[in-house]
Structures are given as structure tokens and as C-alpha cells.
């Protein structure tokens, strides 16, 4: 046994789970698949008194079209995401980014909500959520509130969730029309966290101009980032006039907390990041233009 001792709770409903979180008053941590939390416990990077296991709560699992968006239950496994046809049609970026997460043995246990609530800036789902303006449903005994992705990630492994709140589900907007989506990542080994990566969505109007774009950045700050300046620059541009390398360079402008570690310096990560954005942009445009 490597983890420090803790008490274990397995509530059978979301109501029971949030009641437990309220009663335990800040001393509890939610676990679903545990693929990020258990290594942290094993390495004793995390200590906690109580684990509340929500991995088996049915109402927190599932993938459904609801109005204009796709609802994904927080405890839905990444393997279920990978196999879901509705999801692949509605939110292609979410489907395409999933094989980049760990390995299939990890995806069999790891969950969508777990990845997002863990808030690793080098993780894939947070970047997709930020790029697409997803919305998170946080429930507690005080009620349910919606948190937009843009204000959810506060810093390294830090989110806007209060200690008594449970991430119940995520709503991803569904893009229709002339769209293209692509993911590019560079990692030292397949399945490792990326040194840098990019997720890109683009929608074109009938005249071949950029109607909207979404550029999410992986591993390029203390939180998942969105290249808003580059997106603003792209709005309304004729697609044939846009050089992917320029978009890559613009997407790196203004990044001020790119990490430096033994895998690479901040300057190196930005060079890799620019290349990943350029490639993902080119791929997404190719799809949108039917090329």
C-alpha cells in the first residue's frame, strides 16, 4: 500500500454524493476512474481524509443530444466516448482527441469529468472544453449552477468547483454547417502528456470565409488556453488567404506562463505549439473545404 490512509464512501446517487460532500465539509475528494488521482495518492502528492467514489452512479453517466448541445455525464468513461457514434457526429473534436489520452487500459477507467475536474493543463479534454465553450453543471446541496469553461480553470490543477460541489455533467456545443476539426499533439512517447498540442475547429460560410474558429492549446500554460487573439484575427477572412504558419505564430503570442521542465523549455514548447496549431489548422480547413 502506497497511499496514506483514508475513508471510502460509495454513494448510490448524485444527491447522496453531494450530501456526503456537504457533511464532510471540505475534507473529501471525489474519485471516479482515479487514473489521475490514484497516482497522486501513490506518490503522496495528495493526502485526503475521505474519498467519495461516484464512478458507479448511473445518472452521472451517458451521452445524449440535449437541445443544441451534447451532454456527457461526468462519470462517462473515455472508452465509452471513443465508441459512441452520436458523439463522433455531434462533437468530432471530443471523439478525435480521446485516443491521445493515455492508453486503452487507462481510458477503460478514466472519465470525462475526472479529466476536466483534475484540470491538468496538458490534458486533452480541458482544452476541447475551453475551445468549444462547453458548460459544466456543478451540483451541491445548495442547488445546481452552470460554470462556463472560460471561467472554470483557475490555475494548475485548480478549478472553480467549491469543495462541496460535484461536477455532474458537461454540455458541449454542437457545430453544424461547413465545419472541420483536427487535433495535433507532440509527445515524447505515444500516450504521454503532450509537450504541446492544439485542438482546432473551423466553420466556413458559403463564400469560404471563416465564420468561427476555436483554437485550444494543450500544455502551454498553467491552465488549458484558448488562442482568442488568433481567432479574432481569423474572423471573416477568406480561407485561401490564411497561412497556417501565421495562425500558429499568432496563437503563441501573449502566452506568459508556458512551463519549463526537463522535457523542454518554454521557448521550445512555444515553437512546438506553433507547429501543432499550424498543422491542426491546415487539417481542419482541409476537412471543412472537403479537400
Amino acid at each position: 500500500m502506497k497511499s496514506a490512509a483514508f475513508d471510502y464512501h460509495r454513494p448510490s446517487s448524485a444527491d447522496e454524493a453531494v450530501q456526503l460532500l456537504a457533511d464532510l465539509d471540505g475534507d473529501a475528494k471525489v474519485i471516479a476512474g482515479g487514473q489521475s488521482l490514484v497516482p497522486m495518492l501513490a506518490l503522496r502528492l495528495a493526502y485526503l481524509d475521505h474519498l467519495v467514489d461516484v464512478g458507479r452512479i448511473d445518472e452521472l453517466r451517458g451521452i445524449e443530444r440535449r437541445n443544441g448541445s451534447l451532454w456527457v455525464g461526468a462519470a462517462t468513461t473515455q472508452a465509452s466516448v471513443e465508441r459512441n457514434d452520436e458523439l463522433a457526429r455531434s462533437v468530432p473534436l471530443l471523439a478525435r482527441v480521446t485516443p491521445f489520452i493515455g492508453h486503452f487500459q487507462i481510458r477503460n477507467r478514466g472519465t470525462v469529468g475526472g479529466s476536466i475536474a483534475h484540470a491538468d493543463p496538458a490534458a486533452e479534454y480541458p482544452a476541447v472544453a475551453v475551445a468549444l465553450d462547453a458548460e459544466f453543471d456543478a451540483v451541491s446541496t445548495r442547488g445546481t449552477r452552470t460554470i462556463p469553461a472560460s471561467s472554470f480553470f483557475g490555475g494548475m490543477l485548480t478549478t472553480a468547483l467549491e469543495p462541496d460541489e460535484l461536477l455532474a455533467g458537461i454540455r458541449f456545443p454542437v457545430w453544424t454547417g461547413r465545419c472541420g476539426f483536427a487535433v495535433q499533439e507532440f509527445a515524447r512517447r505515444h500516450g504521454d502528456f503532450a509537450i504541446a498540442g492544439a485542438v482546432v475547429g473551423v466553420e466556413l460560410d458559403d463564400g469560404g470565409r471563416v465564420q468561427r474558429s476555436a483554437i485550444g492549446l494543450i500544455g502551454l500554460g498553467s491552465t488549458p488556453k484558448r488562442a482568442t487573439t488568433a481567432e479574432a484575427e481569423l474572423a471573416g477572412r477568406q480561407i485561401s488567404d490564411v497561412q497556417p504558419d501565421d495562425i500558429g505564430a499568432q496563437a503563441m503570442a501573449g502566452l506568459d506562463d508556458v512551463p519549463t521542465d526537463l522535457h523542454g523549455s518554454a521557448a521550445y514548447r512555444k515553437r512546438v505549439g506553433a507547429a501543432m496549431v499550424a498543422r491542426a489548422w491546415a487539417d481542419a480547413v482541409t476537412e471543412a473545404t472537403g479537400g
Partner: protein
Amino acid sequence: MAEVPIELRVNGQERSATVEPRLTLADFLRERCALTGTHLGCEHGVCGACTVLVDGDAVRACLMFAVQADGSEVTTVEGMSGADGALSAVQSALRDCHGLQCGFCTPGFVVSITALLCDNPHPTDDEIREGLSGNLCRCTGYQGILQAVRQLAL
């Protein structure tokens, strides 16, 4: 900290125990069930040596607490061979292709390959490499392991 009663099936056999919540499934299998075929390399989810099937899905037994497997069906490498000890097809292929040397990583590979071929009986070479990417081997250079899976994938 309160111990928790659990019941699960391991290789077809009912097991009941009372465990500390922090006991991993891997430690439970090795120390409480005496099933030492499940090996522990890194104990934080990187090496894949501890891979077992939980309700048919390959998972890392070091990244799951035994309490989380309560009510589940767990299959370890010991459950892969026949009752008479006959090697499974995956095990035979690894032997035929020199897919192991020291054998430390082999239980994890046997379980991962079994799960991979169950989902996809005829994987392409890329799919094989992708499917094996979550298991580390420090001896073979992987070529024998890849060859074993190719032989089974025909």
C-alpha cells in the same frame, strides 16, 4: 480508518475480504489472494505490468483500489491458462515468437493482448502497436511481442 467488506470473483472464484480502502487491487490480488502472477513494476500506472481484466476490460490494477472492484469479476494472468495449466493462445504465441525474456512484464502483456484481440481479432500493425503502447518491456525490444500478436491476428 474504517476497513470495508468486499466481495468479488477472481478467476471464477468467489472472494470475500475486509480491506483497508487504500489497498490497491494489485496488492489485494498478490497479498490476499496469493495470485502473484500480477506483477507490480512502477505502481503508478505507467508500466502496465499489473494489467488485469475487470468485468472484461483491461485496467491497471495499481490504479484501482480493491474496494472499487467490489462486486466485479476480475481475471488475472492465472485465469488465462486452462485448468490443466495449458497455455492460452496468447501465451503460446509469446513463447513461439520469443516474446519474453525475463518475464516480468509478460503477465501484463498477456492480459493486454487478450483484451486487444477480444475487441479487435484482426488488428493492423498500427493497431497492434497502439494496443501494446501501454505496456513496457525492458528486455525484448518488442519485436518478438509484436510478432506474437501478428501471428494471432492472421
